[in-house]
Every structure is written in C-alpha cells, then in structure tokens.
C-alpha cells in the first residue's frame, strides 16, 4: 500500500492505495469523480483523458501512484464560477456530442491541444484528437467545436 497526495480539480486528497490502482479508478472510486468515464480500459478510446500537471493523459494508462504530488484536472473542474469553459460552450453550440460518453475526454484533450496550438487548422485538430474515439460519429462537429473554442480564446 502506498500513500498518494493528489490535487484533483483544486482540492487536495491524500489516500492509501494499492500500487497497481489505475488513476482512473482512483478518481472514480476513491475520490468520487465519476465525471471521468471508463471507455475501453485499454488506452484506445481516450474517454478517460484528464490533465496531469496540465498535460493530457489517458487516466487508464497511468497509475495513481504516478500522480503523487501532481495536479489533476478532470471534466468536473473545467467550468468555473464564471461559467462553462469555452470548449464546453462550443461543444454544446456546435452539437459536438450525442451520447456524451466520449465528451469529457474530447474536451480535456482539446484543451491540451489548444494550449500547445491556440489556433490549429482542422487537420491539426484531427491529428490532436486522434487518440479520442467517438462512436456516435460526431467528429465533424467536434472539429467545428474546437475551432469555435479556439476563436473564442479557449487557450487563454
């Protein structure tokens, strides 16, 4: 058993965990942040993507102990008192989701993409989100939403 101290969406948590516990299960079952879904459990789909010290990671491919001392941002931490994150707003306005299961990962991955590249081309958006799968075939509108959020200054 190992002790981890992780800041999740701005709140600090200290827990004893098994060294084999995956970050996504730590977030969902220990911290209670069920906004991050488990999609495939095999790091294919990207639904469980979170920010680890600002960089997007698939949280099913990270151990909880690897996040010790880190800051984690999940989809639940994207909106602020000022309202929805520009990406959340843009996903809504561009109809970039149907069932919504891939959406947390899409939004988190897109936020990392815009941090690295504030004004990506459509091709760069598709490249940047290639690790995130949407089975409702919503890619066209997802690209549109990321473009809209970029124009709204989502990288700031």
């Amino acid at each position, binding site marked *: 058993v190992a002790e981890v101290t992780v800041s999740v969406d701005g709140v600090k948590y200290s827990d004893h965990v098994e060294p084999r516990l995956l970050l996504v299960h730590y977030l969902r079952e220990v911290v209670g942040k069920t906004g991050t879904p488990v999609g495939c459990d095999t790091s294919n789909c990207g639904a469980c993507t979170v920010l680890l010290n600002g960089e997007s990671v698939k949280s099913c491919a990270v151990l909880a102990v690897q996040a010790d001392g880190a800051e984690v941002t999940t989809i639940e931490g994207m909106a602020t008192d000022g309202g929805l994150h520009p990406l959340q707003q843009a996903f809504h306005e561009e109809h970039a989701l149907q069932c919504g*299961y891939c959406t947390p990962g899409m939004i988190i991955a897109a936020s990392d993409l815009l941090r690295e590249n504030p004004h990506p081309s459509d091709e760069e958006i598709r490249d940047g989100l290639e690790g995130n799968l949407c089975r409702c075939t919503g890619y066209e509108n997802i690209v549109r939403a990321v473009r809209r959020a970029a124009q709204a200054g989502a990288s700031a």
Partner: protein
Amino acid sequence: MTAETETAAPTAEFGRARLRKEDERLITGQTNWTDNIRLPGMLHIAFLRSP
C-alpha cells in the same frame, strides 16, 4: 411535369437549429452513467464464453 422546390421561411420550429437540453450534464461530467451507480449489496456479473 415541373417539380417546384421552394425553401419555406423559418417558423418557430422548422428551419431552425435547436440546442439540446441534455448537454449541460454531459459536458460538465455530471451524468449518472450506469457504471457510476453503486447500490447496497450490489452484485456484479461477468460472462466468460469459449472463443
């Protein structure tokens, strides 16, 4: 026969995009997926089938 096609002027419903009402919980991580549900004494089942 001549087919006439006209685009009707938008009315309150037709010809307008509608924003979805269910998005807020989906884009903020507040959806209660069945995978989130924990009930007292809940059991799990798994099927192992031969290939």
